[in-house]
């Protein structure tokens, strides 16, 4: 099923079908021509998602108009709320960051030839790992504690994703069913812990949540007076690291080769089963970072609903971002804008906040539909 996306997305195919394509320089062509083709390709890379976004907004606007609300006024609120103020931008970053972590994971797994639709469960396990490191390690300074918290978040997700990889590679289990089941099991594990052993029993009415993490385990606020936190800075570092890992290391090369053409990869001595496990572990670890980010940067404690569908949405984010690290970054910001903008439309214009999901769903459908036009042309 990975195969057909590849066939249809010329842009994706460019990279995925030949892992060495990045090192092939367009030197054989005339420089001017080469520039033109690079320019066109860049335009197409950005243009395709933009057209889908435009279509989604037109349909969403019609829906809003049908409920008797002026869509132009509503969309003014949408952008005013998400991008028009310091706090709006901060909230957009707060929403975009976990989505980007998880979507980065989806993109890595996809490049290695596996669909990771288990990000939701991996986010929960990452959040759990981060919480445990935050609460149960002896007191230590922030510069030691915080990295450990994030690392344990990564580990929690990596274990959960890696397990799914092992089930697929060693037992030939269908990864879609396996990851969906593991999503629920992870949610139940966290639910059990926060209503039982890890529950904060103090307070008048004990809630199903843990106590707050100590300050040394929290991602500091980066824009004062808002919720924007250092998780976004960590994210930028991680994006760079993932790019370097995937495109500049031999393991990354092996992952991409196994994803692009398993038979050929096997032929040149790559253990494709191992790459599946490694890819799923890294992918899960990145989703785990999304969970750690929520615990350490936003909620400051662990609850039963630490992820608001971020795991499932991350697949949409990854796809809109063309399944590459930089694209994922941009696309997660767009999804963050949709979240915050929709909330602001609800506050100001009474448009139901579920517009979030309508716009996101429409963007993906429009992306998929455009494949048809592409094929006809090709």
């Amino acid at each position, binding site marked *: 099923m990975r*195969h057909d996306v590849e066939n249809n997305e010329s842009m994706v195919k460019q990279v995925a079908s030949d892992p060495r394509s990045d090192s092939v320089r367009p030197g054989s062509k005339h420089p001017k021509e080469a520039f033109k083709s690079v320019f066109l390709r860049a335009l197409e890379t950005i243009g395709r998602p933009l057209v889908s976004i435009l279509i989604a907004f037109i349909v969403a606007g019609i829906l809003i108009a049908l409920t008797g609300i002026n869509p132009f006024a509503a969309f003014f609120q949408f952008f005013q709320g998400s991008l028009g103020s310091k706090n709006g931008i901060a909230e957009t970053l707060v929403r975009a960051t976990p989505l980007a972590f998880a979507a980065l994971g989806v993109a890595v797994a996809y490049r290695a030839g596996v669909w990771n639709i288990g990000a939701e469960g991996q986010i929960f396990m990452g959040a759990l790992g981060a919480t445990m490191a935050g609460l149960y390690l002896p007191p230590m300074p922030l510069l030691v504690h915080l990295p450990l918290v994030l690392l344990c978040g990564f580990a929690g997700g990596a274990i959960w994703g890696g397990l799914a990889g092992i089930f697929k590679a060693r037992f030939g289990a269908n990864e879609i069913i396996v990851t969906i089941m593991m999503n*629920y099991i992870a949610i139940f594990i966290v639910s059990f812990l926060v209503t039982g052993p890890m529950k904060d029993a103090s307070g008048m009415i004990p809630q199903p949540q843990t106590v707050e993490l100590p300050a040394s385990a929290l991602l500091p606020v980066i824009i004062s007076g808002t919720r924007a936190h250092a998780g976004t800075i960590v994210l930028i570092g991680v994006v760079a690291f993932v790019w370097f890992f995937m495109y500049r290391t031999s393991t990354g090369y092996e992952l991409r080769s196994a994803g692009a053409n398993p038979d050929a990869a096997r032929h040149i001595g790559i253990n494709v089963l191992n790459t599946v496990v490694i890819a799923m572990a890294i992918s899960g670890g990145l989703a785990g970072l999304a969970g750690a980010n929520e615990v350490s940067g936003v909620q400051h404690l662990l609850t039963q609903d630490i992820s608001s569908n971020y795991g499932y949405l991350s697949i949409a984010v990854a796809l809109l971002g063309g399944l590459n690290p930089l694209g994922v970054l941009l696309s997660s910001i767009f999804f963050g804008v949709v979240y915050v903008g929709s909330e602001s439309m609800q506050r100001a214009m009474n448009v139901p906040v579920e517009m979030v999901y309508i716009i996101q769903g429409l963007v993906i459908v429009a992306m998929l539909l455009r494949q048809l036009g592409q094929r006809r042309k090709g």
Partner: protein
Amino acid sequence: MQNFWQQLLSANFIISMLTSSVVLAMPLLIAGLGETFAERSGILNVGVEGIMLFGALSGFLGARLSGSPWVGLICGILAGVLMSLLHAYLTITVVADQVVSGLSLNILSLGLSVFIFRAFYGLAGQAVQAPGFDPYSIPVLSRIPVIGPILFQQQPLVYVGLLLVPIAYFILFRTTFGQQVTAVGEDPRAADSMGVDVIRIRYASVLIGGATAGLAGVFLSLGELHSFSELMVGGRGYIAIAVVMFGRWNPVGALLAALLFGFANSLQLYLQAFSITTLPPQVLNSLPYVVTLLAVISGIGKGFIPSALCVPYKRGD
């Protein structure tokens, strides 16, 4: 401890627990039966969850606006067919990725269902009631001890669900259409060369899956609570997919798998309600998922999985 066994083994307790098992199994079974068709034809629809939600809403609206639950039932089924048509178009005609298309259906449906519901009834909509299905005892049969109350004193949609099992079985294994569905899911190219219209069969199978998912949604909104909530489906669509795999892509298997899931769910609810056990609810709640996971890992379904599941088909490739 003695109290525990007394309560657990009393006839009334067991009967009412089994009755609720059947009710809890029904949406999984109904959605699973149609999804069996879709998957046997080679199209995985992860969007069952979303279609069920949209079906639940459409059924609710239809029943409330017309005053008849049966009109609601038809609306729910039509809504399911309509939603699955989008999935069929995207996966069969556009040849888009099946998982992505299914997930986008889930996201879109969550948004649309709640948006439409809020547009009609505002934020306090969950208290709004629609005419729904009430229990109907089948004469004679309902008086059979034990089996009567469990199977024959239910609401009509339970009977519909149970009847769908032999119907699905008959269509799949005793009609040309059913054999074509299987052929297309096993080897579309071979089926095509034998003169089977692969595209048409796949469309039909996905739409059947949509119709039953819509029906399963109506079961949730009109069969039980006679109201609508966006949390209504709560992952049952995904479990329905597990039911299909666990049931080895066979309607009878789906029935058994759905009953197992329904039983685990009901056991947990009853043990909880009567505080018979100190076991945390999450342990029992997660049982169906753990069992399915073990089943998939141990390879129980292997050899039954349609060979061309998730493999797109383009003529002349």
